[in-house]
């Protein structure tokens, strides 16, 4: 502690930071809003689906629970998935992240 240990990332810290940002932008005066970090994840999931990504690749990328239908090996990352991923992320970046 004396040496100035860094503060580890914790769930509560991450949530409180983003909560603060959203409050600062939109609802400074309104009541406290319950915010969940999973909201980002679901946003990403729906974007991938709407931009035409297959369910199989989505399930790989998001680490969904393995069931009988989508049976694949996790350790292997195929080139097809990388190509598909790059195509879609480029679109998402154009939508959200190129704010200039």
């Amino acid at each position, binding site marked *: 502690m004396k040496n100035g240990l860094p503060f580890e990332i914790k769930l509560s810290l991450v949530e409180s930071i983003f909560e603060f940002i959203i409050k600062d932008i939109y609802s400074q005066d309104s009541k406290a809003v319950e915010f969940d970090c999973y909201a980002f994840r679901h946003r990403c999931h*729906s974007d991938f689906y709407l931009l035409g990504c297959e369910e199989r690749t989505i399930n790989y990328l998001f680490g969904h*629970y393995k069931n009988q239908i989508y049976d694949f090996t996790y350790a292997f990352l195929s080139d097809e998935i990388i190509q598909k991923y790059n195509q879609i992320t480029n679109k998402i970046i154009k939508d959200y992240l190129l704010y200039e």
Partner: protein
Amino acid sequence: MKIQTDYIPFSIFLNELIRQTEKNLKTLNKSKVEWFTKKIFIEKQILEKLAPFKNSKEPTENKLAKFFDTNKDTFFYKKHYLTLHQRIIQIYNQKNVINISDENFDEKIGQVFTALNAGCSTIINNSFLIDTSVEKFAYFIKNKISQKKKNSLNPYIEISTVDRYSSIVYFVWTNKYSLSDISKRDSSTKKEQKTYIRSASDLIEDYLPVIDPYIKKYNQNVRDDIKTDKEDHNKTDNESLDIDTDQETDITDDDESNLEKKNHYLSLKDNIPSIDRYEVLKINQLHKLHQYFNKLKNSTDLDQQSFRLMFYMMLFLRRSPTFLSSIKYVSQTNSNKKLKTDIDNYPLLDIDDQVIYYKPKHLFSPTIRDYENKEKNEYLKNKENFETWNDLLPFYNNAHFIAGIPLPPFLIEMIKKYDNFKKYNNIDSSYLFIWKGQDGFTNQLDNSKFNDPQKQLFSELNIERYLYENIYRTFDAYMKYFGLGLVDAYLISERHRIPHEICIRYTSISLKILANNYFLASQRWFNAIRSNYLLSDYQPHIDSTIIKNMPAIRMGSWRALEPRYCKEITSYLSSSRALEIPMIQTKPGYQNRNIKVVKAIFHLFILNGLRPFEITRLQRSWLSLEKPTLLVNGKAEENARLIPLHDLLYNELKSLLKFKKEKPNQLFWMYDEKWAAI
């Protein structure tokens, strides 16, 4: 145990024959649908041809020989049967067959059970057969149990199956413990082994709930017999209810009364043409229904017309009549407000969009009226529900909860014809379905009205009993064969059958994607019904251009962030305002790093969809320096997986590695001044 090989019950043979045909058909490498049709066809053929042999009293070998000779050139050849016969004997030897007529019935079942517990290798598949009818067996057990005292039970037995092709019961005895466990236990302690041994009547108590309906059936049959007997012989003893277990075997050709009894049972079974609750309407039946409805096309009766439309809507949308009868038209005057005002209470039909808009049950959101009548509403009585919705309402509009069902073109044609019919008769109403009421027209459905045309219909098909559920299940059964996925079927019907297979809990799916799949499948099915043939390669040309790019359904969309929030969060993080976040304020040297960490986490959320706890676990060594990939350790059930990274994100994460290694393994950490001061 002795195994009887001389006498093979005919029903076993039948079962095995059908199974064998299924296997052979699978090897032909044909499509699923074709296989399905052939299977049904062959099953029917076999059943028809075996009918004369069913009641004959000859030994089975003679029966088989006769059967082969008569049907030599029809649909199989002799070799197949011979191998099959051998195979049946094999199976018969594997399983332990027990007759109820045996005197030592109790002991034999006890032996089987003890052998199972000991991990005996002679009993294969943990199963044995009981060679009587179901009802009789059930009644026998009930009597046995009533005689003996009940002991404390541990349920060892789990599965029991009743085969529908035969009167034989397959009781499959399984232990909760696997055989290997038991063998270990036996080697260690021999005392425990005794506890597993118990008499058959005790064990069978577990089956009573399964057996009860059969007992009722049997009692009814016996009562009917007693009535007839009383008339003839004036018997009064109720003890005649008790079954002599050798009743069937003692039947001879001379006893005419017994034969009559047997025929009576058989006739009872055959002459009850009713659809079971879990059964599905076959293509033949659907074709007949379609022909019947085609005749009704030009009828002037309102009820018949609406019944016709409702049947097709139920069939292709898998919706209940209560849902369908509450459908309203979109009012053209308030077209802009249509989604916000009316949809709280009614599903709305828009013919121009070819969509039914509705509000899914799971996305119930209270309206302003509900808030006014807070005390009456059951959902809002809970404080938690009330508070959460109170907080969320300013963020999300009511329009976010609306979902749509796309309507295939042939259904829309039917709806338009129905509308024209209504206009011709000067009927104006905001509801889609209208029936004749006592005082004018109503939208509310009378069950009696729905039943009357139904009776006419199903009398032609020789079906007495009929339920809505049969129609629902036809949708489930056939739509798979015509290429509709489970997820799409769920989106239309809003009824999930296997929740594990639906991975869309938190997504919104556009109507266009859904409509393309659903239109094709439904059109194929419709063609199959019309032509009375399952497989039809005809692919109709369908324009789904009219359907807008609005979401078909939003699963938990109240938790998915809107895109505009994402945009503004990124702009916020890049601006100078980000330095004023109180959680980030630290030493001037580390302030930039902290913002970089927050940015990188945000990008991991948006571009890779990682869970928050996965981000906290990330380590330095998991980021590969050669390729833009990252190793992620998910839940305990899942394996670790490699994830591709976008170049932008990869460079961000690499720049974080340049800082000092104060906490060597952690990829993400933030420097806080408060912690440093302690």
